[in-house]
């Protein structure tokens, strides 16, 4: 079997803040194969974006990737690369798309310039060649009259157009992996669908892998083949998309699926699961989801659950794996009993 394109082992990214050490990503391991589309889903604050930034080593102080973490990409460990080496990967072998197409573009340069810059940095292309390549990529992302649009500034383009520009920028060097962090959250519903379609389409054409990070299971269902569910800095469930929607094991995943509005509608906040994600400076002992879980029992307080194998390529960080009969006896979650904030 071929080695995976990206292999993350025990990734821990901590932030050393005044309020204490925030263990935002706390021991995450997963693989992405070549050409595969993997989704990470979870509420805000679960550590999914920090995971994404860690892969490109874009964590700024006071945050840092803890020693012992490994991020193997194309046979090299990103964590220990020298600065020049990691810069050579960014935008070239791995690129990233953010959710804020408004602010992610520099307001004082034309969009063509900004897209072309990628090729100038990595392929040492001449100004003219890089520009032509940029226009080509802009056209590929479906921007009409791309040669004219390239000469415009970000503020002259709509949100959807700007997101296409960012996608063009990400595709410039035909990277092996694209990380898309909530790429459609800031866009109108109709534009969202177009952008997702574009991403899937381009992935097929170019053959890159995609890591899709989102809080929206609808996006996951439409674009990915395998899903990782994150909660409180950890992976709580991992499965193929169909398996996850049909046989979700972790109560948190269940909650997420239940709180899903009809696909294609504007996404509300996930407010069906009672309570909120605990603070990353202060993860609870035992199971981190315990207080919000309708099945929790004393074992959940005593023991931090490992990732149990619950099916083919399906893992879940829930003790229900060893006492499945408890699923038949739900109780009101602790947060509600204690009268703590039930959002």
């Amino acid at each position: 079997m071929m080695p995976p394109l990206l292999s993350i082992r025990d990734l821990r990214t901590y932030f050393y803040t005044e309020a204490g050490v925030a263990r935002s990503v706390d021991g995450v391991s997963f693989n992405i194969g070549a050409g595969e589309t993997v989704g990470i889903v979870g509420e805000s604050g679960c550590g999914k974006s920090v995971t994404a930034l860690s892969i490109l080593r874009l964590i700024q102080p006071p945050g840092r990737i803890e020693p012992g973490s490994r991020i193997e990409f194309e046979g090299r460990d990103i964590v220990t690369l020298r600065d020049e080496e990691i810069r050579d990967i960014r935008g070239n072998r791995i690129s990233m798309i953010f959710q804020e197409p408004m602010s992610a573009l520099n307001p004082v340069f034309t969009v063509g310039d900004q897209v072309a810059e990628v090729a100038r940095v990595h392929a040492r292309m001449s100004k003219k060649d890089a520009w032509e390549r940029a226009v080509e990529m802009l056209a590929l992302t479906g921007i009409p009259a791309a040669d004219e649009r390239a000469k415009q500034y970000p503020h002259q383009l709509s949100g959807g157009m700007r997101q296409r520009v960012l996608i063009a920028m990400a595709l410039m060097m035909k990277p092996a992996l694209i990380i898309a962090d909530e790429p459609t959250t800031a866009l109108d519903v109709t534009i969202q669908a177009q952008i997702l379609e574009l991403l899937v389409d381009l992935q097929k054409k170019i053959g890159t892998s995609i890591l899709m990070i989102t809080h929206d299971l609808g996006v996951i269902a439409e674009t990915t083949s395998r899903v990782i569910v994150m909660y409180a800095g950890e992976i709580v469930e991992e499965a193929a998309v169909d398996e996850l929607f049909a046989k979700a094991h972790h109560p948190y995943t269940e909650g997420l699926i239940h709180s899903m509005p009809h696909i294609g509608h504007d996404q509300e906040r996930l407010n069906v699961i009672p309570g909120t994600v605990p603070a990353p400076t202060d993860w609870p002992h035992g199971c981190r989801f315990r207080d919000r879980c309708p099945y929790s029992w004393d074992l959940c307080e005593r023991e931090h659950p490992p990732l149990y194998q619950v099916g083919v390529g399906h893992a879940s960080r829930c003790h229900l794996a060893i006492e499945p009969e408890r699923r038949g006896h739900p109780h009101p979650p602790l947060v509600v009993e204690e009268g703590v904030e039930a959002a």
Partner: protein
Amino acid sequence: MLRYLARRLAQAAVIVAFVAAISFALIHLAPGDPFSGVMDNPNVSERVRQTLRAQYGLDKPLPEQFVRYIGQLARGDLGWSFSHDRPVLEVLATALPNTVLLMGVALVGSFALGILIALIQVAKRGSATDHALSGVTLLLFSMPDFWLAILALLTFTYWLPIFPVGGAVDAVMHEYMGLGARIVDRLRHLTLPALTLTVLAAGGVARYQRAALLDVLPSDYIRTARLKGLSEREILRRHALRNALLPIISLIGLSFPALLTGAFFIEKIFAWPGMGLAVINAIGTRDYPLVVGGVIIGSIMVTLGSLLADMLYALADPRLRGR
């Protein structure tokens, strides 16, 4: 863009008109007749006295005097300087190029130096270098202009006599020099005053620019630049600086009052024959029209400076350019 320009020009015109009114008030706020000293002075010629009376219409009621005064200003008549026995405008016009030269050199120099310091600080933010430079820029920012000028004069003309003591050219020898020697002579005289003003102004520029850069750095588009694989240095130079230059252009406009004030003291201390020296010497001789003329011209310079900076800003910011 054109409409913005027109509006901004109209604003500047209104400001200048108000400045004229304020200068009129200045003259009439003075205790008694502002020219009593002049009028009674037997050394002042009858011609000057008549000109002064005509200029200010001192026997007429105030509103009429005001209308006359504004009318004269509008025609560029700033009154008669009795210490020079020449029109104020002529005195100031002769001195102005020297002031503009001094301020111009210092403006360019201080922004270059200030931006450079800020870039070094931000590239090494949090380091000992950053803190030390912050101390230096705060010291310069807090430094009274005249005191640093005195220190510079002491150090570089007396203790280490590298530069000539004062003036714009060598008072005696300049006449007899060839073209090359004259240019060298001018530069030698310009260096110390211009350098002093540059250093004084650079403190404020560096502090402002450092803050502007630190403001820009957490932006999403800087993260995008990092994502493209640019080095920190390239990011700072290409993306951050370019964006932080916009606030710097506004700072150019805001810097004119401080630069002009600094130039006044520096001209006085280095005997640099500019507007500041003329006005400050006029204080000694109580040459009232010359002082007020200096106030008006100085204010016009400040107004034009901020007008220019605003136009530059509109040109540099693509978000404004289209309008």
